[in-house]
C-alpha cells in the first residue's frame, strides 16, 4: 500500500491564472521540479477572513500530493505526499 508522508513545507509552484481559475502546473520541491499531471480534487477553507485553496494533485511520476495556496500570503505549502499512489 502507498505510504503518505506529511511535509508542511513552503514550496514554489508554477501557477496559471486563467479565466478566473487557478491551476497549479509544476511544483519545485527538494531541488526537483515535478509536473502536475492533473488536479484530482480541490476544496476551499477559510483562515479568518482569508481563503485557503487546497489541491490534491497527481504528479507525472505517479505520486499524489496535497498542496495549498494561502490567498492572503500568496504562499504555497506542500502538506503531504503519497508515494506509489
Amino acid at each position: 500500500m502507498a505510504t503518505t508522508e506529511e511535509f508542511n513545507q513552503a514550496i514554489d509552484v508554477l501557477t496559471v491564472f486563467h479565466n478566473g481559475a487557478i491551476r497549479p502546473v509544476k511544483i519545485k520541491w527538494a531541488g526537483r521540479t515535478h509536473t502536475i499531471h492533473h488536479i484530482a480534487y480541490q476544496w476551499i477553507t477559510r483562515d479568518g477572513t482569508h481563503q485557503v485553496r487546497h489541491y490534491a494533485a497527481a504528479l507525472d511520476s505517479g505520486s499524489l500530493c496535497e498542496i495549498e495556496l494561502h490567498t492572503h500570503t500568496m504562499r504555497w505549502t506542500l502538506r503531504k505526499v503519497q508515494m506509489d499512489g
Partner: protein
Amino acid sequence: MNNPSRTFLDRRFTLGRRAVSLAGVATCEDAALAPLSSFAPARDPADRIILHVDMDAFFASVEQRCAPGLDDKPVMVCGNTQARSVVAAANYLAREYGVKAGTPITTARRLCPHGVFLTGNPEKYVYTCIRLNDICRTFSPRVESFSIDESFLDITTTAHLFGGPIETAQALKARIRTELGLACSVGIGPNKLLAKTASKLEKPDGLTRLTRADIPTRYHTLPIAKLYGIGAQTAKKLEALGVRTIGHLAQVPHATLKRIFGIIGPMLVDAANGIDHSPIVTDDEQPDPKSVGNGYTLHADTRDTRKLLTVLLGLCSKVGRRLRKGGHAGRTVTLVVRYANYTTISRAHTLEAPIALDRDIFHAAAAIFDRVRRHMAIRYLGVSISKLVPTEAPRQLSLFDAQARTQLQAATRSADAIRDRYGEHALIPGRLVRCKEDI
C-alpha cells in the same frame, strides 16, 4: 394529521434519533390486517414534487477522488486510523466485507485486512456539501441541506423548466457527476418521506420515483425496518407484534398505535401511508438551535485531573465561541463524561442568568466536573449549553463584579474579532498550548 406543520418527518428531524419505546405490553392483534390490495392511493392535496439527493458513500468517494489509485480497493474513512476510532464511511467494496459506518476500526481491520484506512478530512466534505447545495439551488430555490451528504429540493414549480421531474433529476445527477466527480442517488416523491425512501431503493447511482400509485407495490411491500425514522428497536418490537412490512403498519388503527407508542404512534401509521407534510426548510428558515455543544475523545483514557480540565477548557472555549457567533447566551450547562468502559453520565446545572463567556462556561462545567466520580479513567468529555436566549436580552449582573465583567466582555469581543480575522487558531488559551490533544 391535525397540524400539517408537525408531521412525522418534522418530528423525526427535530427530535433526532430519540428512541420510541413500547409502553406496556399491548399488541396489535386487535388490528385486523387487511390485504394490501385494499389500499386505495388517495392524492394528497399537499403533494409536491420533492427530490432527495443522497451522495453515495460520500466521505469514501471524496477520498477516492483525491487519490484515484483507490478506485478498485475497499476504502474506509475514519476519524483517525488509530485503534480507538470507528469507521465513519465505507465504500461499497468495503461494505461487501461487512464493514459499515460505526464499525470499530479493530473489527474493520479483521473483516477487511487488505482495505485502505484513511483519516477523514471534514473540511473537504463540508466544502463539497456547500458545492452540492450550490448545484441544487440552480434547479430550485427551495433547497434543504438535510445532512452533510443529503439534500431535499422542492421542484414543484421548477421541474417543467428542465422537462419534468425525471429529467430534472437526471440533469442534477449529471451536474454533480461532472462538477464534483461524484455519484449520488436521487429519489423523487410527492413529499420528503417518499422521496427519501425512493433514493434508498436503487443505490448506488440510482434514480427512483415513487408516486402514490406505487405505494401498494413498492412502498407497502418494504420490510418495516425500512420505514424512514424507525429505530432498530422499534422495528424489532413491531415485528414481534406481527407488523412485518410497512403495509402491515398502514393497516393498524391510529388508536392502537397511540396506546402502544404514545404520540409517535399515529405518526408512524401516517408515515406508513406515505403521508408527510413536512416542509422544505431552507438555510434562511432554519430555526435557532436549542443548544450548542462540543465533545472530544482523548488520545488515551486518563484520570489526570489537570489534563481533563485543560480539555474541558478547550471545549468550553469552542462552545462559547459558537454560542457568541450565533448571537446566543445560555443558562443550562451540561457535562457529559464517558468512562473507559463506555458508561456515560450526563450532569446539568442551570444558572440564574444566561452566560456566553468562555470563562463562565468553564467555571460552570468545572464545578460540575468536580462533583463527577473519577473512579475510572475517562475517555470522552462533552460540554453543551442550552436554554438559549438572544445575546441582546438583558442580563442580571451582580453589582460587585459588573466592572470586571465589562472588561472581560470587551476582552472576549476583541479575541473574537481577532479569530474572525485571523482564524480560530490565532488565539488559544495558554493552558492548551502544551496540551497534546488537538481539541
